[in-house]
């Protein structure tokens, strides 16, 4: 069963998703960025709050509109990591010093017996050249009790929420 992913808060520079899993072993989930059905970064930014007014949406549109020195078109995993994990040292992954890139951060919320067991992971890849944010849970729900974690996708150090 896949990780359930639900957008819970949206701002101009950030979006928060709540991840839940009831899998004892390894569970996975993906957030697309193409305007597809939720969970999708563009869709969630455009339909909740003021997300349609900020730079995070510009990053989500990189494959169609480009972003700084990252040209429009099919992106590579390195470029996707540059945009969403600020790992700018990859090949052609730096949009330019003046442009912000995003970070993904995990905050476990609910675990077995109130403690944080297991591991939540986040990485970025591409599908058809479009970035996807991929989350993984490992051993977070050993007894089937739902475990939860927040995923923040945000632009650091930006003025405005």
């Amino acid at each position: 069963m896949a990780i359930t992913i639900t957008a819970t808060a949206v701002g101009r520079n950030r979006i928060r998703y709540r991840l839940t899993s009831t899998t004892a072993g390894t569970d996975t989930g993906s957030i697309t960025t193409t305007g597809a059905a939720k969970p999708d970064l563009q869709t969630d930014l455009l339909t909740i709050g003021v997300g349609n007014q900020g730079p995070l949406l510009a990053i989500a549109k990189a494959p169609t509109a480009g972003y700084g020195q990252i040209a429009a078109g099919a992106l590579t995993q390195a470029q996707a990591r540059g945009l969403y994990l600020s790992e700018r040292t990859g090949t052609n992954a730096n949009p330019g010093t003046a442009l912000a890139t995003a970070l993904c951060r995990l905050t476990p919320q609910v675990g077995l017996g109130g403690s944080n067991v297991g591991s939540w992971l986040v990485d970025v890849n591409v599908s058809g050249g479009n970035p996807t944010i991929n989350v993984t849970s490992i051993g977070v729900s050993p007894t089937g009790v739902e475990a939860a974690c927040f995923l923040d996708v945000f632009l650091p150090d930006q003025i405005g929420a």
Partner: protein
Amino acid sequence: MAVTAALVLARPNRLRYLLTQDGAAGTTLTITSTGAVTPDLLTDTVPGQVRAIAKAFTDGYAAYAAGALTQAQARALWLSNRGALAPSIGSVRRVTTARCEITPRVGTVTPGWLVDANVDGGGRPTLNITAQATAGTAYLDVELETGAIGA
């Protein structure tokens, strides 16, 4: 080397390292602040507030005079663990300190990534990473406390 840190982002208010545990024996890594080869907080920072914190040993920072620091002071500077220090680093509202965040990217076991701050034999702050026991990667963010304006 089992655990390595590669600098992937350097901005005035933050550094991001990609931590890699390659599965070999050994689970610790020390990030220095002496101007040594990367990963080193003095070498890797760009002009800005984080660099000012990295220069605490040579230049002082807020109420901390230049010179040897203690572990408690290093934790105040790099983990924002201010506590009830003597001397206090300064008013919470006026003195910005850094914090460290770890975000796992790839792994196969329950979490083991930890970050703490200490000082070396000469009183220079270090960041001490403890990795998980098997191969995996994570990001380490060294950043100013939330609210600092500027990238």
